[in-house]
């Protein structure tokens, strides 16, 4: 038997040239052409027991949608994904497939796994562009039950999409003026075009989901108010990890020090990158971002696109410990972001008017492993040095938003301020109130939030319909 079968090469997605793309906000990867998608889809072994599906938090029917691409039925492929995932165009772009479905792919054992994310994006985009008229998917008849969803980020959108198909009357409450949560205020245009997010949300509205903007649950109305006075039978809380962490170092309140949330919100949600926007942003010449996650990469890359001459990432551990996706780190490196690793800020130095002049840092080395299993960075004595800069972005994580716990006294929260909910079903300590996403886990990924949303939607349906 010939074991030396030459398998076709994985198809890489073409990208904007790094030199060009750092001067615009357009998406970095171009997406597959029909031929590229077909070639990639044909590599799929169509496993009888697909491990990739196990790797997906929302169990997308991966081999089935890939088979539909092979058959040239791209629109059907997108609809196949939508049976379990309402937001394929978003997930195809921002999911960490390399640690989920693609990590489990058999092909990955000897070569490159199937580019599941690229294919998902391909058919979702194809459906948006060429899908023709909106086709209502299979929907259960209205069951007369009202569900409120707090927050229109990935967790909330998933719950809404699932429950509306189950026959529930679903209303999403969004605090900001535009729905999408982190998908619109956090993730930049060049990684996730806002037009795509709008179209996915538009799809949910066509399914019958109501959307209330400028509605801050806990302030505009409380959860108890919605349930006792406005007839909501259940509430799902997906309010996210909205509160930015700071380092609490001297000078941190100097002008030009931003939380990543603020910097990205000014640029993404408020469109400060456009001349026509009234929201200002300090377009730094030399920008330093502190942190090693995806949000730090997004911030540093946004700074370049806003015209920075230099954009530097300061991270206290090494590249191996960076929580960012490797693809994001790679993109950042390609674009010329300078990585100062094993480096930690100790003070922000400002001028007499309070504007940032430089960031004082200290070198670090790795010591014994800490609670996270990663080696703990410890400062090297007398190794301080200054990096000249006019903008500093703090991207070291977010804390849960306290608005809901503060105004819902009978919901249990952890000492970190996250809402305590069962991972498997999203149930909280309060009857008929469910929670999922970053408000439960602390800052994590889009797809984990969606997975939590799916689980919560199942229990809501179970609690309100099956058990009554």
């Amino acid at each position, binding site marked *: 038997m010939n074991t030396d079968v030459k398998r076709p090469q994985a198809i890489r997605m073409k990208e904007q040239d790094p030199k060009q793309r750092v001067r615009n906000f357009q998406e970095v990867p171009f997406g597959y052409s029909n031929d590229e998608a077909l070639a990639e889809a044909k590599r799929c072994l169509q496993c009888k027991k697909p491990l990739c599906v196990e790797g997906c938090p929302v169990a997308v029917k991966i081999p089935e949608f890939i088979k539909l691409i092979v058959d040239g039925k791209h629109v059907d492929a997108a609809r196949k994904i939508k049976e379990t995932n309402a937001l394929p165009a978003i997930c195809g772009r921002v999911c960490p497939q390399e640690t989920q479905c693609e990590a489990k792919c058999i092909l990955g054992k000897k070569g490159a796994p199937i580019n599941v994310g690229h294919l998902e994006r391909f058919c979702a985009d194809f459906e948006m562009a060429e899908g023709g008229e909106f086709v209502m998917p299979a929907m259960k008849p209205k069951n007369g039950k009202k569900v409120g969803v707090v927050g229109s980020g990935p967790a909330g959108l998933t719950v809404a999409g699932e429950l509306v198909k189950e026959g529930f009357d679903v209303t999403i409450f969004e605090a900001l*003026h535009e729905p999408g949560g982190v998908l619109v205020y956090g993730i930049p245009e060049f990684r996730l075009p806002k037009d795509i997010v709008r179209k996915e949300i538009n799809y949910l509205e066509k399914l019958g989901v109501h959307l209330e903007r*400028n509605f801050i649950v806990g302030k505009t109305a409380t959860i108890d108010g919605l349930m006792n006075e406005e007839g909501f039978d259940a509430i799902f809380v997906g309010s996210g990890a909205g509160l930015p962490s700071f380092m609490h170092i001297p000078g941190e309140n100097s002008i030009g020090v931003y939380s990543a949330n603020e910097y990205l919100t000014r640029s993404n949600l408020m469109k400060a990158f456009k001349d026509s926007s009234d929201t200002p942003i300090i377009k730094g010449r030399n920008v330093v971002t502190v942190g090693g996650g995806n949000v730090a990469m997004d911030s540093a890359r946004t700074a370049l696109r806003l015209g920075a001459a230099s954009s530097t990432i300061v991270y206290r551990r090494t590249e191996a410990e960076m929580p960012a996706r490797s693809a994001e780190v790679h993109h950042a490196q390609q674009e010329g972001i300078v990585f100062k690793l094993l480096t930690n800020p100790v003070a922000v130095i400002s001028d007499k008017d309070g504007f940032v002049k430089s960031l004082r840092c200290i070198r670090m080395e790795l010591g014994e492993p800490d609670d996270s299993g990663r080696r703990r960075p410890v400062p090297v004595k007398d190794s301080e040095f200054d990096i000249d800069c006019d903008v500093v972005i703090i991207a070291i994580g977010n804390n849960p938003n306290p608005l809901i716990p503060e105004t819902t006294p009978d919901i249990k929260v952890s000492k970190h301020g996250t809402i305590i909910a069962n991972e498997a079903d999203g149930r909280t300590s309060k009857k008929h109130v469910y929670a999922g996403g970053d408000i439960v886990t602390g800052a994590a990924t889009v797809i984990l939030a969606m997975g939590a949303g799916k689980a919560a939607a199942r229990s809501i349906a179970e609690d309100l319909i099956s058990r009554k």
Partner: protein
Amino acid sequence: MPKILKKEKLSDLVFRYRLEAPRIAKMRKAGQFVMVRATTEGERIPLTIAHADAAQGWIEIIFQVVGKSTKILSILHEGNDIIDLAGPLGKPTHIEKFGRCLCIGGGVGTAPLYPIVRALKEAGNDVTTIIGARTANLLMLEEDMKLTSDRLFVATDDGSRGHKGFAADIVKKLLADGEKFDFSVVIGPAIMMKFTSQVTIGAGIKTFVSLNPIMIDGTGMCGGCRVTVGSETKFACVDGPEFDASKIDWDEMIKRLGAYKKQEADSLEKHNCLLTGRPT
């Protein structure tokens, strides 16, 4: 979308809008604010709720034209919609029966002071109010304040109405006359709050101020509104907007208000050119 039910011009630069907002009217308490956005490309700006009627479902905001966003807001008409209005935000003022209260409003800060004066009065306090402005036609709510307070004093920088000088001068005089107060609230421009609260704190009066720093979301998400209070960083939107005046790092607070001075001036300039057709 929330409709402008009534528009009044309180002075050359100051406007009062009554907005249809039944939910906010029902939930709001003295000291809370709303976020307002007037156009799709506009900024989100925080404005204190100056008055509200839960039964009729409206709130009132009072604002002074200081930059492009407030200018655009000011040219809307009765019957127009405000595209975005969200709230009520921030922690309400802590109201209790303190005894003798001294409420001091400077300029447009008189607007957020008004609901606090009312609430203090309703809680059974004896309320002395001082309002000040640069000049007489920038004074606001004089009649309303007179009706709500036990005593009202007025000061203008140029002496065009009331005492010629600052509100703080009147405070000093009252204190010199041997008057005692148990609680004070000062709201106005940052520099006025800094110096006026120094006088009341110096007399041993517990003093609160309401800060109005730069914000985007108003819900704790961005941290742009951070202030140092008692050596801790606080977010004015969720921890405030009211704080113990004796603990605020005023110099930092005042510097941070100037973060976008240049951009704001450019933006207003560009906007004026569009209005007048004048070439840049």
